[in-house]
């Protein structure tokens, strides 16, 4: 299913999405910003942990907050969730200025990176308590807790003490706690940290549902770039406290270094593949990486890629198929988010 991102005007493949995601994206594009961050800076003495951060977020968006360790992601989330107050700058959430932190807290849900849990409490008790802290009376707090336990897949373990929960279960409980007040903006700081692949997939699906079905804005801080590619509509890359890049995933990828396809063919077909790729449309250069094993790379012209949608795979594949070269594997180099990320952060380091 295709998801349309209004800000870029490009169509991107989003496997696993559905019409609701598309509709949500459309609504998101047209809706007013629910979170406006305006030159926010947070200093700890001489150290500026976050410097001059500005962005907007709309309902239903999932914004990935990327950055190396110490980039300021957690500090940014703590400022926007009112745990810390900004040194300079301002932000509004749902129209509420940051000078009213109590009112802002009513609108947000947060899963902190280092979330601890009272191990002697049960999951249900924990959620009931937090529902009460958000103003729900006792009866509706019980109902909310029960409902959320079902939503995050902990219904059968709700009456067990949190001490018996696995890491993944505690993370899901944390997400449930972040939803207890039906927030309009949700901050998730490393939600998949420590989870196994299955747990990560479940968490990402939950995040997509939260944004898509509830229309909540999700700010997702993570190290895992494939998560960002999978669920995020926009990305902000932080480095040393500063936002060094912002845009859709596709936009960020396009800022990566060379658009190169790495191809593996049978060694006896190496030369044939080399010739075919040299003649393929848009190819600026073809290199033989390992002739004996059949590895080649084809680097495309940037201007040609911009003109033709930025995806060089089809042209290279077509060229090899046309000459009946067997393709053992191919890989897009330089078009990955990780490449863009490394490139951008290295630039920042320089």
């Amino acid at each position, binding site marked *: 299913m295709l998801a349309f991102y209004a800000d870029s005007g490009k169509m991107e493949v989003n496997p696993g999405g559905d019409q609701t995601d598309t509709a949500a994206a459309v609504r998101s594009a047209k809706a007013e910003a629910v979170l406006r961050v305006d030159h926010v800076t947070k200093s700890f003495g001489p150290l500026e942990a976050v410097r001059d951060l500005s962005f907007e977020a709309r309902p239903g968006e999932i914004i990935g907050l990327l950055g190396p360790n110490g980039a300021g992601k957690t500090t940014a989330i703590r400022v926007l969730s009112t*745990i810390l107050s900004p040194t300079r700058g301002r932000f509004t959430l749902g129209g509420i200025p940051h000078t009213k932190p109590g009112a802002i807290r009513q609108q947000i849900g947060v899963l902190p990176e280092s979330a601890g849990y009272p191990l002697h409490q049960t999951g249900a008790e924990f959620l009931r308590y937090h529902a009460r802290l*958000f103003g729900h009376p006792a009866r509706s707090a019980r109902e909310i807790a029960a409902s959320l336990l079902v*939503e995050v897949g902990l219904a059968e373990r709700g009456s067990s003490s949190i001490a018996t929960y696995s890491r993944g279960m505690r993370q899901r409980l944390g997400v449930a706690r972040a939803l207890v007040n039906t927030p309009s903006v949700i901050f998730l700081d490393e939600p998949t940290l420590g989870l196994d692949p299955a747990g990560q997939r479940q968490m990402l699906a939950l995040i997509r549902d939260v944004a898509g079905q509830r229309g909540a804005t999700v700010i997702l801080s993570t190290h895992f770039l494939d998560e960002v590619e999978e669920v995020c509509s926009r990305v902000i890359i932080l480095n040393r406290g500063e936002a060094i890049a912002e845009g859709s995933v596709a936009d960020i990828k396009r800022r990566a270094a060379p658009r190169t396809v790495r191809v593996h063919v049978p060694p006896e077909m190496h030369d044939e593949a080399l010739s075919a790729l040299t003649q393929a449309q848009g190819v600026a250069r073809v290199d033989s990486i390992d002739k004996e094993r059949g590895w080649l790379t084809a680097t495309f012209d940037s201007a040609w890629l911009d003109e033709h949608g930025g995806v060089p795979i089809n042209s290279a594949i077509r060229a090899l198929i046309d000459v009946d070269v067997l393709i053992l594997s191919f890989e897009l180099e330089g078009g990955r988010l990780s490449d863009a990320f490394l490139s951008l952060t290295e630039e920042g380091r320089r």
Partner: protein
Amino acid sequence: MTSLARSDYRLRSAAKAPAYGWLVVAVQELRDIWLSWRGPIIVFAFSLLLSLLTYLAATNKELNIIDQRDTVNMVVQITLGIGVAVSLLFGADTVSGERERETLESLLLTPVPRRQIGLGKLLAAVSVWPVLMLVAVPYVWTLKAGPGLFANAVVAGFVVGSLLTAAFASLGVIVSILSNSNRLSLAASFFVFVVLLAPTRIPLTGWFGDHIARINPVTAGSRFVDRVIVTNHSLGQEWTLLIAPVVAAVIALAVAFVVADRLRLQGGIDR
């Protein structure tokens, strides 16, 4: 995977700050203390201690080694000391302990005002005192002190204990809010208590000693109980000895009220 309700994407949060956030916090903290092992273990151990002391005291009383009033005084003073110390330690653990267990952040992310969080935690911290005093009542009664002495002993003990508990539990909460380390919070709070408790072990006589005894809330309170029980003075006769405990309670509560508003994820004043 999920079946989240499909609702208007412009959902507004239905949440608001609870009308009595301090009560919600206090109830949960009380549950944590009394439905877990912490509170019951302390109270049970205290009852065993009083049972042992009462039995020994009764034996000695029969042998005339110790006077009846001294026996009652000993039970009340021990109850005071343990009740105040435990409340102090609960107060000292209540915020810095949550910091170390990393559960404080989720509490700070709620719309409950910081002061109300502090108040709720303080109420839970002092909850052990009335329970200990209640446990001590049958022991005081059974020492056959007589109706007049029993009533005065219980009232004097309860009044002094309540004032000192309010003062020291508040001190514990203040230190806990300001400290990043739970160990430091507990040690510093207990140290202050021991420093103020130490003079009760030495005779404070003469003009200087008498004034020290009156200024120090612990010695003043201890002396008040002693004079009511042992010397058989009336409660009103020694009211001046309650000045220091009252002042200590008022000051500590006031400072806690101010400091609680600065409750942050990291210890110290807002950075």
